[in-house]
């Protein structure tokens, strides 16, 4: 009975497959020119940027042929010199092509179905169909108008490499390869998106990266069945563990050196064609607080910098809520003189302090958002208008107090101390919730918001790895070696345990000569 059912289900599945095949279609080249070219005529008719050039080849000009390519994607010079010239030369014959024996004939591949040939055209190759041949010749003459490798915009460092990813996947892969010449650096290539057919490369170091996580990643990637994938953000939401969170559960970066460093610690990277942003996984929250520049500084300096970042994190989230709670519920907790100056600056203000804080935070958010959209020349104007004119005028007009401006300014600056833009923009919005709880319940509300925040963070996982480690579960070694502090690299004998690296040892202890 059960077997029968299973068979029925199986047959259904098979049926589905054949249906899809029919839609996709597999039509091999027949070798009869007029029949083969028909499909391409239909294609070029609807896509005018595709050029179909009919040729007559051979000594007697009797072999019909066609050259098909997309105008904007191929390098015309190479096409003319290395494809067209050998084709129309006098000693061209079918026999020569089959033997591939023309001396200056460029390398070519051959495909045997019309669909493959179309795919190659869309990839930017030139395809040649020749009468009497049961396959098409594909010449790689792709020329993309690529951006030059330039300094990354999102993660700038003062001391460190100036290279950032570009939109071309092969350039990006080579940028990483150049930094890791390890034969164990494996790259898997996938095609994602039914229509966009975006190339995705999964990079990892065999022997360090955890197999479980890799399998899980491949499983999740294979489940993606969608029409287009244009950027890493598209797949992020398919492979993340939890969609209902404000925290980024995957680390994104545009720095090849960061990728190389993380790969060597056991992470897995996804690089997508057409996107200068790569994904690193699994991510833990401390990775958002490390930059490649930390390792280029003297370790004491970068330890201090990290401590400053750690201080600025709670400031960026809690300060407005904390201030409002203190002033409106527990003014007795402030020193008398400070309280007096706060009260003096708030004298005659029409709004309660909560409205004041909310207003200022919203204005700052609007300013930030407007600043991003504008070109950099105008962006400065926005800064001046926002900071000087609105700030000064708002105080003069009696809408807000000076101290509130200071509080909001400190909060905003502190939030920019987060090296990772994605995390920074997420944390910004936690402020509103904390401000609300601080307004309604004072310091008790601040405690409640902290406990809810921690509850939320400890339940987050990134590919099964606890997102909040090494803070919780506490890994004191990781915490003291490379999270809160950064001890000299010579002492970092073990890889961080949070990524479940298979090979845990990073280096042997260094022996210095006296």
């Amino acid at each position, binding site marked *: 009975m059960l077997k029968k059912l299973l068979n029925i289900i199986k047959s259904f599945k098979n049926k589905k497959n054949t249906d899809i095949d029919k839609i996709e279609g597999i039509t091999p080249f027949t070798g009869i020119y007029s029949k083969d070219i028909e499909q391409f005529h239909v294609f070029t008719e609807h896509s005018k940027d595709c050029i179909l050039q009919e040729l007559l080849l051979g000594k007697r000009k009797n072999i019909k042929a066609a050259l098909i390519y997309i105008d904007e994607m191929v390098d015309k010079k190479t096409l003319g010199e290395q494809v067209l010239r050998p084709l129309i030369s006098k000693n061209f014959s079918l026999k020569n092509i089959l033997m591939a024996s023309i001396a200056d004939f460029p390398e070519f591949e051959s495909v045997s179905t019309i669909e493959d040939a179309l795919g190659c055209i869309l990839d930017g190759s030139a395809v040649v169909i020749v009468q009497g041949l049961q396959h098409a010749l594909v010449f790689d003459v792709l020329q993309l108008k690529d951006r030059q490798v330039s300094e990354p915009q999102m993660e700038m460092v003062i001391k460190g490499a100036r290279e950032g990813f570009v939109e071309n996947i092969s350039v990006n892969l080579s940028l990483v390869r150049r930094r890791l010449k390890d034969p164990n650096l494996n790259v898997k290539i996938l095609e994602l998106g039914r229509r966009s057919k975006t190339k995705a490369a999964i990079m990892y170091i065999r022997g360090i990266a955890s197999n479980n996580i890799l399998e899980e990643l491949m499983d999740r990637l294979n489940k993606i069945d969608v029409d287009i994938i244009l950027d890493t953000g598209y797949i992020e939401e398919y492979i993340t563990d939890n969609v209902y969170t404000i925290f980024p559960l995957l680390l994104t970066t545009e720095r090849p050196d960061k990728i190389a460093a993380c790969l060597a610690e056991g992470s897995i990277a996804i690089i997508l064609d057409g996107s200068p942003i790569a994904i690193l996984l699994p991510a833990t929250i401390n990775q958002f607080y490390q930059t490649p520049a930390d390792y280029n500084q003297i370790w004491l300096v970068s330890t201090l910098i990290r401590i400053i970042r750690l201080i600025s994190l709670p400031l960026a989230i809690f300060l407005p809520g904390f201030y409002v709670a203190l002033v409106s519920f527990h003014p007795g*907790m402030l020193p008398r003189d400070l309280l007096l100056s706060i009260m003096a600056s708030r004298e005659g203000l029409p709004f309660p302090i909560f409205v004041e804080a909310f207003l200022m935070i919203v204005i700052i958010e609007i300013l930030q958002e407007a600043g991003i959209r504008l070109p950099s020349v105008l962006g400065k104007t926005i800064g001046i208008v926002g900071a000087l004119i609105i700030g000064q005028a708002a105080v003069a007009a009696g809408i807000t107090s000076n101290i509130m401006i200071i509080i909001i300014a400190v909060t905003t600056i502190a939030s920019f101390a987060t090296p990772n833009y994605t995390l920074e923009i997420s944390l910004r919005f936690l402020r509103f919730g904390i401000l609300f709880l601080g307004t309604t319940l*004072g310091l008790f509300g601040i405690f409640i918001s902290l*406990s*809810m925040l921690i509850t939320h963070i*400890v339940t987050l996982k990134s590919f099964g790895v606890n997102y*909040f480690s090494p803070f*919780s579960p506490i890994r004191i070694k990781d915490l003291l070696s490379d999270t809160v502090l950064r001890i000299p690299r010579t002492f970092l004998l073990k890889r961080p345990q949070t990524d479940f690296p298979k090979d845990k040892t990073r280096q042997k202890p260094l022996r210095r000569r006296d």
Partner: protein
Amino acid sequence: MLISDNDKISYHQYIVLMFFAIFEVGFMTLPRTVSEKAGPDSWLALILGFSMVVIALFILTRLSLKFPDKTFVEFSRLIAGNIIGSLLCIFFFLYLYCWSVSLSAYIGNITRVFLLDKTPLGIITFTLLVSSTYLIRYGIEPIARFCEFFLFLTIIPFALLYLLAGKHVNFGYFKPFFAEGLTPIIDGAIETFKHARGIETPFMIIPFLKTPEKVFKGAALGDALYFFLMIYPATIITIGVFGTNEITHFSYPAIVLAKELEFPGFFIERFEVLMVFIWYVGGFTSVVISQYMLSLGITRFFKLKNTRSMVLFIFPLTYLGTLTFRNIVQLEILFNIVNNAFIIIVLIIPIFLLITARIRNIKGDTDG
């Protein structure tokens, strides 16, 4: 999912969990209650009380260790039979319920005393219970990790606070030694022992331990951490600063002490906020642990599958419970009941069950 250890906690997490299970609202009043009973010999009473806690822990973990994959709900019925076992379970549930109600009501009252004198009690306890329910719904592992995060945030500020107060300690307050004989010391020790509500936690969470064989060691370590890092210095320094007579006039001596401290140039003047914050963490985690045990227990009692929805059922019950206690005097009565029930739960019931198991010759899972 690939790494699903979501329902097991490691040995370290267990230690931290025990630390926070025992760290609860009594923390603020213990210096007073002990010194009321034991006077200058409080330091000795505390140590004696702690040894009693360890003994009780030893007995109750002996019992749990017989059935490392069963909770109290299952093994009590297995040992004492269905009827008596069920009665024991219901008693245990009532205790847990009263405990969590008294905790949340107490936190609400203290909040009104120190922070929000105009906010209605109902709103405070409601927010508290909402956030505790939010955590409990995720299960034991996030609870343990929540505690883990707050461990150092609790111990380090507390230690700093008390190191600062250390220079004001007058050791003359600890004289005379043994002035009134042994009785006051034993009274103080019992007072300390009552303070250890929460040591029954292994009863319910032993199936979730990765290393159940270390159940006693971990609990003893967690409790020792709490005793010797938190409550012992708090009591000694408070007595040392104020003296045993003056301390009995303070409702919350630990907070009064923090109030007295001053750092010139610091932007917050009153350090009792920090103290109240630390105390919140302790109280909150105890609310969470007690409610978790309660919902887990009831789920297992009725052999239901979903603890998560039981949590939502416990939430309004606890909330209604807290509403009935309007002031601290009423709460003290409830605390007395809870304390007596606590002694029955951690001393009398385990001994009873161990003896019954021996008489009825019920072999545990680990006895082979």
